[in-house]
């Protein structure tokens, strides 16, 4: 530094004092001989004019005012002259000296990070050392000028405003080298690298690049060199107040890179509280670095606190907002991420953005035909819980989930899914919720607004939709929320009835303990009156068990079967309507049933039994030459396959005759056995049974069997429903005629009532509860009927 700096200092020193000397002599001579202004030789006319004016009015000694103003002009002009000399000196010496250091050493290849680092460390340090030296030299000079100016008060005031540091910064960096910005940027990045590599926190790719270019043993030395260079450069910048001019933009962009990297590193980490960790990270890494770069100052503290409370926080909040869908999927494991987000949501517009983003991701990821209804429900339930934690006012939940609720309302199997997850054996969220009886009280009644209004008043956020009742927003009861999708409990109750009926009939035992427990829970939820039918249904099962035992004891030996045939006797008004269809059963079974009927009437003389032949479940085993296959199927299926025992093959016509059913029905039943690969159709309309299991052919068996097994079980009334679809054309016209007549006469009616009346007026029409309801909803969809409060009416 020394030689160059010394020469600059010498040059500056040589020029400025000359000027000052000159001025001093002008002033001295002017004041010593006021009467001879003509002897003055002026270098600059302006100064000359000022001096002339000054001395001109000095003649008129009595005019004090004029004299004073002329003195001020003179001082100002003198100050201008001195300051412009100073600036000129900085421009002519300090700036070129500084830039020469950087410009004269050839830069290394940009691809070699190690070389760049070394080069920057060396030359930046040198350049700033030169700068420091020349500013220091000018400072010394300027102090001399100030000393001189002390003698003229108005001159001293004008000069005092001059700040060497500011002027030097402005002049030196007014015309930087084109590559200077890139150099500083790299230098700042390097400084963070040197700072962070010590702490093993190296988010930028410099580390990797440097490690690629520099042998491992040299890294430490390089780090130390860079550390020393940055310390030197930053201290120059701090001393000469150059941080803003030189460093700040690059410090900020470096921070931006760090914040982005840190945010990225926190992506998908829902299990831990990242908000706190982020604060710690700032304290550990960027904060000391910032103090190192900017020095201990208020500004630096402000920047650190801004980084903590705004910059990284908002970046994290934005990240969590976009990840919210996944956070909900992971809930409750992601509870920490939610409390982070909760703490970070401070601006109203963040909430609005969150609602928008989450709605969009629900629509994109969930509300499409590819998603299973149970999955949508699970996510919805999870969302209810998670968003409650995020915002207990329930406004976010309400706004985000409105489309979900609408979509669920439109899905046909939603109710069935909700109800079955309420009562299924498998552990499910809803089941736990049902068992959680605390919440059940408000399923019915509106929560009164007054009771929680007293001690902690928490106003509803601005973006709340005030047209909605607040009770729904506040309730945290998931089942109530699900039920409210449909507006009333009736559809749930009906669906539960259908489901319970399926379950009771398809269980081969009379064991209903579990159903009883469910019933008790549901009673709490839906009220005893709504659950009466299922109480009767369950009692039917227990009664049947008792009656069955006594009836079986009274059965004559002659009709005894070689397998157990147990009977469930139902109270018909309390069960869903079963569609009965002619189902001829094997002779021994028919005989047994007749005898059973007689025995029952002995037991209950005033009552009669009516068989539902097509309903029930039969476990059969098909014995082949090489093994056996077991199936649980509807009685009609069993009877059909039994025909093949007697005769093989059958034509379609023969089967239709033997089963007294329609071609379509026989085909449908055969389709089950064909799918099971027990029956083969070959040639067309001729059916035969395989003789060996080996003939089944292995592939697809596993997949098909599962789903079809289910079909066979649900056949209890599922089949009836499906067949109704087959004959729908006929039904719809007829049915609508009846329905429209009823509604014309009676205004509006609930579905049950209409079905009962249909049973009276059109007993021949094969219609059951479910297909009738489907028919009604189709009519509503077609705009022929309108529904409100569970009652239907004609659209006028």
């Amino acid at each position, binding site marked *: 530094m020394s030689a160059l700096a010394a020469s600059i200092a010498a040059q500056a020193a040589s020029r400025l004092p000359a000027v000052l000397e000159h001025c001093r002599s002008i002033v001295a001579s002017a004041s010593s001989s006021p009467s001879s202004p003509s002897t003055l030789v002026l270098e600059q006319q302006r100064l000359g004019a000022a001096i002339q004016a000054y001395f001109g009015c000095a003649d008129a000694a009595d005019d004090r005012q004029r004299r004073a103003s002329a003195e001020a002009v003179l001082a100002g002009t003198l100050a201008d002259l001195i300051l412009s000399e100073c600036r000129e000196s900085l421009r002519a010496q300090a700036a070129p000296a500084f830039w020469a250091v950087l410009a004269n050493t050839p830069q290394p290849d940009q691809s070699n990070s190690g070389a760049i680092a070394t080069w920057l460390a060396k030359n930046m340090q040198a350049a700033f050392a030169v700068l420091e030296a020349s500013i220091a030299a000018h400072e010394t000079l300027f102090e001399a000028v100030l000393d001189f100016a002390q003698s003229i008060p108005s001159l001293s005031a004008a000069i005092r405003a001059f700040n060497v540091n500011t002027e030097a910064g402005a002049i030196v960096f007014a015309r930087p080298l084109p590559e200077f910005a890139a150099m500083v940027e790299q230098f700042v990045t390097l400084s963070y690298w040197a700072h962070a590599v010590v702490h093993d926190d190296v988010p930028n790719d410099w580390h990797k690049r440097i490690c690629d270019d520099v042998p491992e043993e040299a890294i430490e030395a390089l780090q130390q060199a860079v550390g020393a260079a940055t310390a030197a450069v930053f201290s120059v910048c701090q001393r000469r107040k150059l941080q803003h001019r030189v460093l700040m933009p690059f410090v900020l962009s470096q921070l931006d890179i760090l914040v982005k990297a840190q945010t990225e590193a926190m992506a998908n980490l829902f299990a831990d509280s990242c908000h706190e960790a982020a604060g710690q990270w700032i304290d550990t890494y960027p904060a000391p670095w910032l103090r190192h770069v900017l020095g201990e100052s208020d500004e630096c503290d402000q920047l650190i606190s801004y980084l903590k409370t705004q910059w990284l926080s908002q970046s994290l909040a934005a990240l969590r907002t976009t990840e919210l869908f996944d956070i909900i999927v992971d809930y409750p494991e992601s509870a920490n991420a939610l409390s982070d987000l909760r703490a970070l949501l401070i601006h109203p517009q963040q909430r609005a953005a969150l609602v928008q983003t989450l709605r969009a991701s629900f629509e994109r990821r969930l509300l499409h035909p590819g998603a299973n209804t149970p999955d949508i429900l699970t996510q919805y339930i999870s969302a209810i819980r998670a968003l409650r934690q995020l915002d207990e006012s329930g406004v976010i939940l309400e706004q985000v989930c409105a489309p979900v609720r609408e979509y669920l309302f439109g899905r046909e199997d939603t109710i069935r899914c909700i109800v079955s997850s309420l009562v299924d054996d498998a552990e499910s969220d809803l089941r736990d919720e049902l068992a959680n009886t605390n919440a059940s009280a408000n399923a019915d009644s509106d929560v009164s607004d007054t009771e929680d209004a007293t001690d902690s008043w928490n106003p509803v956020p601005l973006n709340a939709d005030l047209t909605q009742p607040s009770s729904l927003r506040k309730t945290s009861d998931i089942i109530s929320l699900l039920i409210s999708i449909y507006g009333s409990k009736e559809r749930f109750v009906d669906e539960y009835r259908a489901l319970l009926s399926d379950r009771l009939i398809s269980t081969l035992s009379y064991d209903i303990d579990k159903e009883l427990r469910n019933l008790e829970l549901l009673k709490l939820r839906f009220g005893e009156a709504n659950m009466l039918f299922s109480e009767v249904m369950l009692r039917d099962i227990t009664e049947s068990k008792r009656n069955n035992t006594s009836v079986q004891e009274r059965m004559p030996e002659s009709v005894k079967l070689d397998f157990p045939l147990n009977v469930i006797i139902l*109270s018909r008004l*309390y069960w869903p309507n079963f569609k009965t269809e002619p189902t001829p059963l094997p002779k021994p079974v028919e005989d047994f049933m007749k005898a059973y009927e007689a025995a029952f009437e002995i037991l209950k003389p*005033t009552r009669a*039994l009516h068989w539902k032949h097509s309903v029930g479940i039969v476990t059969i085993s*098909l014995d082949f030459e090489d093994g056996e296959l077991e199936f649980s199927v509807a009685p009609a299926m069993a009877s059909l396959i039994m025909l093949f025992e007697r005769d093989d093959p059958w034509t379609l016509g023969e089967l239709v005759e033997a089963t007294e059913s329609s071609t379509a029905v026989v085909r449908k039943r055969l389709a089950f056995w064909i799918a099971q690969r027990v029956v083969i159709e070959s040639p067309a309309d001729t059916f035969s049974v*395989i003789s060996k299991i080996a003939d089944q052919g292995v592939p697809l068996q596993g997949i098909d069997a599962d789903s079809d097994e289910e079909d066979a079980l649900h056949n209890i009334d599922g089949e009836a429903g499906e067949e109704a679809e087959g004959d729908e054309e006929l039904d719809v016209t007829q049915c609508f005629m009846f329905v429209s007549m009823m509604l014309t006469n009676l205004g509006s009616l609930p579905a049950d009532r209409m079905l009962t009346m249909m049973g009276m007026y059109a007993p021949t029409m094969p219609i059951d509860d479910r297909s009738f309801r489907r028919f009604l909803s189709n009519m509503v969809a077609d705009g022929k009927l309108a529904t409100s409060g569970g009652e239907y009416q004609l659209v006028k």
Partner: protein
Amino acid sequence: MKVRVKNWSAVAVWRWKVDDDTCGICRMAFDGCCTDCRLPGDECPLVWGQCKHCFHMHCILKWVHSPNANQLCPMCRQEWKF
């Protein structure tokens, strides 16, 4: 192939052996129960009077014990006898 039945669950419904569908007093279905009962069947039995009219037992008992009924069958106004 041989079919072996292992288990057969059959389903039947019961009905009272009565011509009418509904009770003349409470207008509820016979196969359901009277307005005071919750469970049909044995818990809410039917009774036949000597006049052959049939009611829910609870309904007719209430009826014949009411002061204005004079122990008459509500359908045929004959004296009610079990």
